């Protein structure tokens, strides 16, 4: 499967197709919305803003999943369970030690990295090179195990935290931000705004890491041609460890970031896992910028579904898009047909 290589450079033609598709969707949505504009513009603005805000978190989670798929050729069903782990770690830090939820990033990112490396070393490395189905089942078993471990440790009761300064004001030079801020009539809460900004920052860091560092080059080399990478002196096994660690660190960060506006439960990460699958298929398996764009697209789809199909689940639109993507463009918007 050649499309599994981690692509950080766009392929011009396919990127154009992708842009056209996204643009067309946006146009249809805008046209549909135009007629409504007078009576619905606030709802619409809210949906777009909410979609973009949550979309950034989807992007972050999906980049981790896509990276693991691109390098290791593994569909990681335990990605969401690891996110639940990160959420509980952050939750305990906030509740029991009074640490600021955003400061918990300093713990969750490295901790999840270590957990990821440990999982790769003990469970997945022994079956590397085994067929995809086996690895799918393996990570599925892992996910069952982790979720139920969390259930045993914390019970199934959903928990949440309050951000004490959620409605504070911030003076940024001439700009004075009074949270919750109104943007085109849409409400933007501080936790979501922070999740958006930090997710994008981390996505940028990951992108630079893959693109500009020796480690990143080695990861991309291992993704494209493990044997070739081995020949030029790259320790591919080590790269696999690091890659799974980075993938887990992505959900580590996401877990901390969504804690102030999401409930914590053993299966809390599951929704994100499912959405990340959709994003990764949509963006092209293994494509990092595809995951970034796909996250926003899914965030928008999910929120707009609620406007255009009232009373339905947010996820219906997401799954319709998923099935269409699987059938029409399984290589993803940014992938290339092999």
């Amino acid at each position, binding site marked *: 499967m050649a499309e599994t290589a981690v692509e950080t450079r766009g392929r011009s033609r396919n990127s154009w197709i992708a842009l056209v598709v996204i643009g067309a969707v946006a146009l249809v949505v805008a046209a549909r919305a135009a007629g409504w504009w007078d009576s619905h513009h606030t709802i619409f603005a809210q949906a777009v803003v909410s979609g973009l805000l949550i979309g950034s978190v989807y992007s972050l989670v999906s980049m981790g999943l896509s990276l693991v798929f691109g390098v290791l050729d593994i569909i990681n069903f335990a990605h969401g369970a690891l996110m639940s782990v990160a959420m509980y770690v952050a939750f305990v830090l906030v509740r029991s030690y009074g640490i600021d939820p955003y400061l918990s990033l300093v713990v969750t990112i490295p901790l999840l990295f270590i957990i990821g490396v440990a999982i790769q070393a003990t469970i997945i490395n022994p079956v590397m090179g085994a067929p995809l189905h086996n690895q799918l089942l393996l990570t599925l078993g892992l996910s069952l195990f982790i979720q139920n471990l969390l259930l045993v440790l914390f019970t199934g009761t959903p928990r949440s935290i309050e951000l004490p300064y959620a409605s504070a004001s911030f003076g940024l030079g001439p700009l004075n931000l009074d949270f919750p801020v109104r943007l085109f009539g849409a409400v933007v809460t501080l936790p979501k705004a922070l999740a958006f900004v930090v997710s994008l920052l981390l996505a940028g860091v990951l992108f630079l890491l893959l693109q500009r560092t020796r480690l990143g080059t080695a990861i991309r080399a291992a993704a494209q041609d493990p044997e070739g990478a081995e020949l030029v002196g790259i320790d591919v096994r080590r790269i696999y460890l690091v890659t799974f660690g980075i993938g887990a660190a992505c959900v580590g960060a996401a877990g901390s970031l969504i804690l102030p506006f999401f409930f914590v439960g053993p299966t809390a990460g599951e929704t994100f896992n499912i959405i990340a699958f959709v994003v990764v298929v949509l963006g092209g398996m293994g494509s990092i910028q595809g995951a970034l764009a796909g996250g926003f697209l899914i965030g928008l789809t999910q929120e707009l579904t609620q406007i255009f199909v009232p009373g339905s*689940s947010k996820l219906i639109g997401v799954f319709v898009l998923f099935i269409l993507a699987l059938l029409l463009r399984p290589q993803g918007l940014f992938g290339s047909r092999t």
Partner: protein
Amino acid sequence: MSGLFKRLARPIRLGSKDVRALVVVVLLLAVAPFFMPRFWLAVATVALMFALMGTGWNMMGGYAGQFSFGHAAYFGIGAYSVAVLLTKYLLSPWVGLLIGGALAALFGLATGFLSFRYKLKGPYFALATFAFAEMLRLVANGTSFINKAIGIHIPLVGGDNWARFQFEVNQRNSYFVILFLLVLALAATVWMVRARAGHYMVAIRDDEDAAAALGVNPLRYKLIAVALSGFFTALAGGFYVQYFLFIDPDLAFGALVSVQILLRPIVGGVGTIWGPLVGAGVLALLGEGTRTLVRQPPAFLGFLQGVNGLDGMLFGAILVAVIIFAPDGIVGVVRRLRAGIRQ
């Protein structure tokens, strides 16, 4: 493409020896309830239900090599068909079973046709089956005709009633009903594997291009497998509703249901007639063992809901261990041991 199956890439022989052994096992299962205490009878009934789902999954995931991660779709269609036809139209669950099975087979044909037409393979196919099941769950959650997320309760009629197969007095009858359905599925598997269709399916599974080059129509035989698989998995869903007298969208179409369905054949041995039976038996014993260990009442509904954390941890660990140490399942291990002894 599918190495879990490649490991078994010897031709599937379901010789008359296997069939004879199968008959003996079924006869033993038929007399077993007369020697079982009530508690174990209930455990065995649920185990047979899982064996039926697993046998259904195995037709498509095992013999035809089309790995399904969304068999909850068929299970749920069977369950809701029986529940709706009974509560809204007063149709006997026996009719409901047939209609549910047919609807599930149709759903399988439709989604399978789409997926195969667009050449979805391996993980992409698995993700598509998963997405179809999730969509049904979401649709069920939003459809007021079937009570949305609240679910459907089956009214109790009291006493023993064969027409509705509700057995308050003699629970052995439930066991016989599910055993009967399982025997049908096993017979269908034996027929399928021994018929030309089965050979074609295995050929397609092992090398689709080669099979197609020899004039086998892959689409046709894959669809036959999907339809049969959907039908028998739906029967288990219909039985589930009549046994537990309740169904809701998560119990019917949840991702955990799909996991439960594929767990047994994989633990037992994919693509073997014994796999789902062995897997269901072993996991039933292990599940009961854990439950006794934590001293919980035998809440069988919890089994599908996954409320019991220790159960889930154990199943997760088993799945990981099986994939790492015995990817061809218990049946595969036994076969290798026997081959080793012979040499």
